[in-house]
């Protein structure tokens, strides 16, 4: 039985791909039923993943076909079915199927309906391929695939300039990371004696020990750089908040649960390689910490519900990186498993939060500015309930999922501060630990703020007289005023309910399922060590240090207190109309403005990177027009000049002249021959 699932694991990527192809080719015929092949494909893939879940083993690989036999580089299409892979597979396909079902209701009536579902299917194909792949180059190919699907999906409403530029921004920033990944692969290929890029060849002790010293430092660094772009860490996180221009299911799927976790997956998969460079691991942890803190502080003041969730995602990804970076010496296995557990639970509750936001937005007529609506808990009961569950999970309150996963990361950090003491990094990890605790408080605060601003207080529906309503000109900057939808004047052209009514069951059912998962996933998989045991079956992780770790009651208490404090503070400020937030904002105006404007990071990038690149482009254009083009044109004109201006005068038609020139030539030649 297990053999069947391992043998046919190739069906997991291919079923959604097939659905996507059918949806794309049959778009004209299927039209509003285009979701059927895609959803069916994803659900089938999920069922197969569950089967594979029980047949995982570190050595289980399936050879599917030849891809690149070039010289001494042989890259077959080979899939590995071990613990890490199957965990990711089942999570990805599960969340994808729920999001796809949600999108059936959300995107109903959209003119790009078939295109949307085809791209969803293509995305699931790329993501499952990425986690299944057994070769770095194959992973890179699927890495690019998810990047492309992200670009296409963010720019789904490509006629909106904001969406188009956000898609381009996402793609270009990801490209910067992809370059690092490519260099890492090339470097790996160069230093490996047999030039085999498969995980099986690289992630074993002998090969790793035989790497040159520079590669031991450089390759982990470059892999981290790639993960920085894909998983939105400092300095390459700037694309994620802008990616909210895409439809909400896209945000839920790609930018919460799956694509942004690809970076974490890559680092986790390459953990034996990364563990060779403890300095890089410290860097990973510090980056994760800084990112978590920065984005949490930005999320405190945002008025756009989806933006809050986006920055929250960046912050939680920072947590995962903190966990990965804590994997030094004998904390290694614990830390990486903690990071993967947080990834697992985060997928559920963040996906849930995004879908619930989408439901709110859908009910409010594509308005997402929290200041324009309030007190929706009676109007939207299911959405309210599920949003509350997700928020509690994000805040890390017992017994919701986030509590256990966040706790494990904090535990790993603390253990690393003891183990790392011997190498001088202990104090860094301790610092990171305390910053993480503070971030827990901030996380709880902004989550509860969003919840209370949306669902508590006097009931208010958005109206055109709101002071925050957009002016009649089309899409302005990255601020928080424009609605998320196909643009002013366009409506969804559908009629599922009027504004202010709860979403239809096709949208609330996935919310409920995800809420159940957010509630139970932590308890069921964490304390029971089911997750750990499953992840033990991962290839290469036996090389990581493994020590004995108990659970730390103190950490759990501190984090829970922090979370409850945050929720309480938010309740005081936002549950009822209170002047305190406004007074605080006025008192700390510079801080408030900085936080509201995302600490001007985008503007700084514009000045440092974009403007210099544009200046360089202008210089190049100038050189091209006046130097290169002139040179080419000059060369092209040279024969004509030579012929017409210089030599044509000699063809004057007079035979005597021709004879004279020949005779002169003979005479001169003779003269030269005689004398010289």
């Amino acid at each position, binding site marked *: 039985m297990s053999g069947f699932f391992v043998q046919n694991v190739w069906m997991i990527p291919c079923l959604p791909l097939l659905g996507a192809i059918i949806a794309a080719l049959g778009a004209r015929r299927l039209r509003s039923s285009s979701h059927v092949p895609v959803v069916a494909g994803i659900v089938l893939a999920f069922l197969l993943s569950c089967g594979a879940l029980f047949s995982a083993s570190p050595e289980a690989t399936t050879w599917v076909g030849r891809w690149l036999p070039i010289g001494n580089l042989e890259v077959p299409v080979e899939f590995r079915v071990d613990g890490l892979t199957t965990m990711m597979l089942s999570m990805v396909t599960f969340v994808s199927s729920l999001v796809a079902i949600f999108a059936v209701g959300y995107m109903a009536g959209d003119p790009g309906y078939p295109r949307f579902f085809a791209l969803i299917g293509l995305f699931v194909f790329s993501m499952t391929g990425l986690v299944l792949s057994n070769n770095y180059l194959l992973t890179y190919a699927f890495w690019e695939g998810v990047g492309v699907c992200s670009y296409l999906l963010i720019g789904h409403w490509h006629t909106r300039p904001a969406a188009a530029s956000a898609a381009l921004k996402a793609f270009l920033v990801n490209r910067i990371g992809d370059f690092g990944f490519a260099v890492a692969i090339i470097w790996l290929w160069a230093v490996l004696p047999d030039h085999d890029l498969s995980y099986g060849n690289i992630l074993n002790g002998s090969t790793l020990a035989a790497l040159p010293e520079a590669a031991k430092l450089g390759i982990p660094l470059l892999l981290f750089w790639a993960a920085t772009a894909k998983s939105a860490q400092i300095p390459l996180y700037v694309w994620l908040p802008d990616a909210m221009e895409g439809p909400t299911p896209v945000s839920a799927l790609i930018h919460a649960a799956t694509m942004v976790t690809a970076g974490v997956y890559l680092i986790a998969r390459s953990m034996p390689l990364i563990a060779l460079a403890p300095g890089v691991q410290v860097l990973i942890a510090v980056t994760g910490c800084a990112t978590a803190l920065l984005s949490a502080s930005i999320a405190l003041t945002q008025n756009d519900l989806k933006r809050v969730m986006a920055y929250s995602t960046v912050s939680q990804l920072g947590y995962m990186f903190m966990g990965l970076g804590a994997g030094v010496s004998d904390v290694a296995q614990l830390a990486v498993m903690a990071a993967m557990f947080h990834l697992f639970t985060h997928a559920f509750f963040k996906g849930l939060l995004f879908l619930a936001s989408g439901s709110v937005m859908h009910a409010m007529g594509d308005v997402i500015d929290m200041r324009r609506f309030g007190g929706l808990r009676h109007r939207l009961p299911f959405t309210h309930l599920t949003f509350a569950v997700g928020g509690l999970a994000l805040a890390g309150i017992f017994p919701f999922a986030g509590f256990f996963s966040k706790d494990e990361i904090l535990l790993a950090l603390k253990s690393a501060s003891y183990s790392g003491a011997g190498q001088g990094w202990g104090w860094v990890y301790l610092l990171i630990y305390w910053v993480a605790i503070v971030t827990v408080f901030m996380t709880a605060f902004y989550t509860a703020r969003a919840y209370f601003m949306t669902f508590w207080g006097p009931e208010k529906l958005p109206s055109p007289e709101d002071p925050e309503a957009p002016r009649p000109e089309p899409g302005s900057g990255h601020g928080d005023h424009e609605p998320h939808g196909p643009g002013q004047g366009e409506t969804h052209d559908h009629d599922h309910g009027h504004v202010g009514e709860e979403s239809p069951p096709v949208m609330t059912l996935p919310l409920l399922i995800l809420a159940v998962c957010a509630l139970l996933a932590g308890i069921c998989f964490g304390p029971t060590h089911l997750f750990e045991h499953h992840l033990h079956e991962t290839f290469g992780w036996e090389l990581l240090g493994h020590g004995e770790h108990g659970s730390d009651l103190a950490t759990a208490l501190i984090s829970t207190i922090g979370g409850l404090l945050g929720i309480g503070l938010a309740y005081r400020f936002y549950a009822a109309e209170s002047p305190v937030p406004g007074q605080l904002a006025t008192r700390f105006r510079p801080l408030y403005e900085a936080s509201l404007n995302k600490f001007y990071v985008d503007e700084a990038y514009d000045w440092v990177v974009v403007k210099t690149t544009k200046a360089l482009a202008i210089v190049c254009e100038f050189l091209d027009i006046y130097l290169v083009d002139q040179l080419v044109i000059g060369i092209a004109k040279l024969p004509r000049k030579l012929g017409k201006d210089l030599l044509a005068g000699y063809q004057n038609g*007079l035979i*005597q*002249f021709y004879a*004279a020139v020949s*005779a*002169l030539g*003979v*005479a*001169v030649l*003779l*003269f030269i021959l*005689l004398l010289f």
Partner: protein
Amino acid sequence: MSTGQVILATLVILLGAGGSYLLLPHRHGATRSRNVHAAGAVLASLALLGFLTFFSPPSPFLAGLFFYLFSIGAIAGGLLTVTSRNPIYSALWFASVVLSTAGLFLLAGAQFLAAGTVIVYAGAIIVTFLFVIMLAQMEGKALYDRAARAPASATFTSFLLFWCLLYTLGPLHPQQYPAAAEVNGQQYAERSLVRGRNITEFYQLNEQHPDAATALAYAQRQTSAMRDASGAENEKPDVAGLGESLYSDHLVTVELAGALLFVALVAAVAITGPKRPIRPGEGPQQDAGEGGRRDPENLMSHGAAATLIRRFFRSRSFRDKP
């Protein structure tokens, strides 16, 4: 060639070039004054005298005298041919060149050629020239006779070539090179050029290059030689020997020359064609429809073809008339 001789040669060339340039027509046809002509003539004469010093006189006095006379006649006549404004004068001076050359042939022992040159050139070719000039240029000197095309470059080119030839021929001066060979026990005052019949021995071709020796032997065969095989070193009579050589060794050449002459005859008649003689000023009569248009590039134009076709049909209809 010693430095002195190089300088002399260069001087001769410069004088000659200057004289020729002054004697040639002006390039725009402007008048040259008498003084200019006189100066040119003086320069040219000086050049000729300097050139004559390059000669080594043949030993019998009379032969030497006649050699000098004929060469002066040839060169002076040549210069006058080239610089005369009247084409009739040019033709006549050319006749004098031909006669001088015939004299030189006589001195070299080629009597038949001397006579042949006079007959063919002076008799036939020059007369033909004169007839054409009569037909074509009845006004005597025309504008284009009085103008030369780029006289400076032409003079420069020709005299540069002449200088190169002088430089090449100079080293054959008698005092330059000692004897090179001893043949038949006699000391020849041979110079660096070995005579034909001694080449094989001199360069030992029989031993080193047998195939070259056979080729040379063929070239020096008895029917072509000027001397009898009897070893008496008697010269054959020129005409008889030439005839024998011509009709035994070069028979095919003679036949081909005859055929060539025939072809030239037919060609000349075909080119000019049997039609009414055309006076200058009248257009060619057959282009009746184009009266007076004389563009050579329109030979294939519609008009010409049409008129030709018309003429063809007209001539057929004429034939039907009684």
